[in-house]
């Protein structure tokens, strides 16, 4: 049933999206804007398409306009979240994508990896962290407003695994974008990171249910090990998100209101502490 309040979400979301397009066009130029917003739309659409048709955990019946059962406004929501996360990350860290682009010109592979670890990776983590925050707000609001719902779930707050998968979606899209936008960083290790992380994500959300017990054991080893093989800083962040978003939920199986409070605290507080007490002071402007 279409939500009587759907206009409350659809028109402001479209308006906010166009504000961001204007911001990108005016401050970052045509190449960035086209790559980010067209690429983001394609990415978001493909993701939603697979979730609607193959995972079938979302019911978008509250929204009227759909393309192949995917509401375009949900796709705009993804780009909205990633882009604002990027803007705020740049502010907190004290450098922009355009400055990184200039810095990357005429550098060797070793310097490129230093920039990747010291600037691009912190930006990536900033987007991921912000994506988790927005997920909690907008998804929890949406399920209460009947804009959409999770099939088989009737709680008031979005669950931690959903926030965890949102966070990882932010990581995958932003990594793809960085590898496309910054041509110089397309080194084997960085590309391999994207491929391995995406494969882990797909296994985690789509293949998991088809595995036998031995397969599940191997799967958990991959989930725990793959992301920590590449970069130390990313490994720290990933382990924090994995614990709060996935592992603890498997321990606290029944989501009573008290459990829910604990789950949200464990998801957000360590990330907040990591982000503001380590990442920003270490990589941000104060370090320069």
């Amino acid at each position, binding site marked *: 049933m279409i939500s009587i309040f759907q206009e409350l*979400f659809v028109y402001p979301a479209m308006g906010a999206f166009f504000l961001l397009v204007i*911001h990108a066009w005016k401050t970052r130029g045509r190449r960035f804007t086209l790559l980010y917003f067209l690429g983001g739309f394609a990415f978001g659409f493909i993701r939603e398409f697979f979730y609607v048709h193959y995972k079938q955990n979302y019911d978008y019946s509250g929204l009227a306009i759909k393309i192949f059962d995917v509401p375009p406004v949900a796709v705009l929501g993804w780009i909205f979240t990633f882009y*604002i996360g990027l803007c705020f990350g740049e*502010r907190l860290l004290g450098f922009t994508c355009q400055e990184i682009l200039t810095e990357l010109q005429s550098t060797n592979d070793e310097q490129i990896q230093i920039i990747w670890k010291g600037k691009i990776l912190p930006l990536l983590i900033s987007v991921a962290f912000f994506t988790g925050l927005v997920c909690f707000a*907008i998804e*929890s*609001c949406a399920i209460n*407003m009947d804009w959409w719902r999770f099939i088989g779930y009737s709680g008031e707050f979005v669950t931690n695994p959903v926030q965890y998968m949102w966070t990882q979606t932010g990581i995958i899209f932003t990594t793809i974008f960085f590898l496309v936008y910054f041509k110089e960083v397309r080194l084997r290790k960085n590309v391999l990171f994207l491929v391995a992380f995406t494969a882990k994500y797909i296994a985690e959300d789509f293949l998991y249910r088809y595995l036998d017990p031995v397969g599940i054991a191997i799967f958990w080893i991959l989930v725990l090990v793959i992301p920590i093989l590449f970069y130390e800083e990313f490994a720290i962040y990933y382990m924090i998100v994995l614990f709060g978003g996935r592992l603890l939920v498997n321990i606290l199986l029944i989501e009573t209101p008290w459990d829910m409070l604990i789950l949200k605290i464990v998801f957000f507080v360590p990330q907040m502490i990591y982000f503001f007490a380590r990442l920003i002071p270490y990589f941000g402007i104060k370090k320069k």
Partner: protein
Amino acid sequence: MSKFISHLPDIAILMMIIVIIISLALIQRADLAVLVLLPLAVYLGILWFKKG
């Protein structure tokens, strides 16, 4: 670049926050709005504090 353009992401996130507050207030769940916006508000508060 004008100052207004540089603040467009702030306006966009503010729009989203207002939408959530109004929406949940319409179904008499303003209490829920406080809870779901709390982590985001903490983040934005620290962002504002750090950047002055």
